[in-house]
C-alpha cells in the first residue's frame, strides 16, 4: 500500500511541470470558449449560443471544416489553446492585445468593440478620467481591467476586480461602487434586461479606443492560414452583417473591422 502511494505522489509532483501528451490529429477541430458572456457567447440551457457561435459557424462553413465548440471556461481555454493539443482555437470575445500576441497567434480582427462605463442615472461622471478617484468595478483580466488600471493605477484600492461582470454589476446596483466598466455588448445587454433600474451607459472614445476581437490560436497554428481567408470572405459577402443584425439589431461597421490592424 505504502509503496504504491509513494509512486502516486511522485507521479503527481513530476507531472506538475509536464502537462505533455501526444495529441492525435483529428479532422474535427475542437474550439474552446468561455460561454458566460451574453450576448457574445453564453449557455442557453445546455446549448452554447451567441454572436461568436453564429459567426464561427459561418466561418467554418466557408472554410469547409468540421468543428466542435466546447465550453471550457476562461482560464482552461487559455491554457488549452496555448498548448494546442486538444483545442485548435478559442473563440470568446478575445481582444487582440500586444501582450497576448507574445504567447498566441490571432486571426484577422472580426469584431469591433469598445468599453462602456455604466453609472447611476444621476451620476455626475461624464468620462473615463472622472473615474480616477471613484470606486470602479471591472471583471478581472479583461481589457476594462487593464484600461482602468492604467487610469487609476494598478494597485489602486478603488479599483475592484470581480470574477464576473454579473457580480461587478451587482456591486454597482448595491452601491458598493460608483461605476462598472465593461464591454459595450455586456453593458447594453444588462441595461436591456434591467430597464427599470436607473442606469446610463457612457462612451469615451478618447480614453477607450476601439478594440478588436480575434480568434485565438496556438503559436504557429496551421488552422489560422485556413480561417483568415474565410473570415475575410464572411465579412465581405454579407453573412457577417446578417449575423450581426440578428444579435445587435444594427448594421456593423465592416470597413473598420477589415481595415483594423
Amino acid at each position: 500500500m505504502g509503496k504504491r502511494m509513494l509512486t502516486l505522489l511522485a507521479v503527481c509532483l513530476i507531472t506538475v511541470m509536464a502537462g505533455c501528451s501526444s495529441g492525435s490529429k483529428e479532422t474535427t477541430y475542437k474550439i474552446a470558449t468561455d460561454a458566460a458572456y451574453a450576448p457574445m457567447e453564453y449557455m442557453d440551457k445546455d446549448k452554447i449560443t451567441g454572436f461568436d457561435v453564429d459567426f464561427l459557424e459561418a466561418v467554418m462553413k466557408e472554410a469547409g471544416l468540421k468543428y466542435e465548440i466546447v465550453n471550457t471556461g476562461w482560464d482552461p481555454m487559455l491554457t488549452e489553446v496555448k498548448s494546442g493539443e486538444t483545442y485548435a482555437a478559442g473563440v470568446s470575445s478575445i481582444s487582440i492585445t500586444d501582450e497576448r500576441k507574445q504567447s498566441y497567434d490571432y486571426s484577422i480582427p472580426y469584431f469591433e468593440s469598445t468599453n462602456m462605463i455604466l453609472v447611476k442615472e444621476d451620476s455626475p461622471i461624464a468620462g473615463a478620467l472622472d473615474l480616477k478617484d471613484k470606486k470602479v468595478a471591472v471583471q478581472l483580466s479583461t481589457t476594462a481591467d487593464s484600461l482602468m488600471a492604467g487610469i487609476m493605477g494598478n494597485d489602486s484600492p478603488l479599483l475592484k476586480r470581480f470574477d464576473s461582470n454579473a457580480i461587478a454589476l451587482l456591486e454597482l446596483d448595491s452601491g458598493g461602487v460608483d461605476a462598472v466598466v465593461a464591454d459595450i455588448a455586456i453593458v447594453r445587454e444588462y441595461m436591456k434586461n434591467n430597464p427599470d433600474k436607473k442606469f446610463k451607459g457612457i462612451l469615451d472614445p478618447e480614453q477607450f479606443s476601439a478594440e478588436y476581437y480575434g480568434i485565438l490560436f496556438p503559436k504557429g497554428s496551421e488552422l489560422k492560414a485556413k480561417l483568415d481567408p474565410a473570415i475575410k470572405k464572411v465579412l465581405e459577402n454579407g453573412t457577417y452583417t446578417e449575423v450581426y443584425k440578428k444579435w445587435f439589431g444594427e448594421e456593423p461597421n465592416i470597413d473598420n473591422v477589415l481595415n483594423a490592424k
Partner: protein
Amino acid sequence: MDFRFDIIWDYGPLLLKGSLLTIGISILAILIGSILGLGVAIGKMSTKWYLNWPMNGYIHFFRGTPLYVQILIVHFGVVPLFMGQTNPIVAAVTALALNSAAYTAEIYRSGIQSIDKGQTEASYSLGMTHRQTMRFVILPQAIKRTIPAFGNEFIVLIKDSSLVALIAAPEIMYWSNAMRGQYIRVWEPYLAAAFIYLILTYSLNKLLSCIERKL
C-alpha cells in the same frame, strides 16, 4: 427585490443533471479518498522512514495548498499524462479524492491513536499479528469514534466539489454560472445552488447519524 423564479425553473432540468453529477463525483471521491486515507494514515504511523516520510509529505502538500490549484494541476498535468487528453470529470474525482485522503488520513490517525495501547498489547499477547490487531480490534472501534469527524469531512467535500466548475465539469455550480452568464444576474443562480447543496448535505447528515446509531 425582484427574484426571477422563472429562470431557475428554466434551468431546473440542468440543475438536476448537475446535482446528479455532483452526487456522483462526491460519492466516488469520498470512497476513494477514504480508502487512500487509510493507507496514508497507516503509512504515516509506520516506524519505517520510507513509509512515513512520503505520507507526511503527502498530507502536508494536500492540506497545505489550495484545492483550487490542486484541481488545475490534476486537470492539466496528471489526467492528460494518463489519458492523453484532459477530462474534467476524471480530474474532479481525482483531485477531490487525493485532497480528501489527506484529511481522512488524519481522522483515521486520531481514531486509531485514541484506542488504548493496552488493547494492542493484549492482542499481541493473544498471538495476533500487527495486521490482525488493526483489522479486528483497533479499526472497528476507531472508525466508529471518528464518524462525526468523517461527517464533517464529507460535507466539506460536497461543497468543495463546487470548485470543479473551474474546469467546466458540468455540476451544480457550472450550470449556475451558465445561468449567471446568460441573464447577468447573481442571486437566482447562486441561491438556487446553495439550496441544492443544503439538501445534499442535510441528506448526508441524516445518513451518517443513521449509520452511527446502527454501529
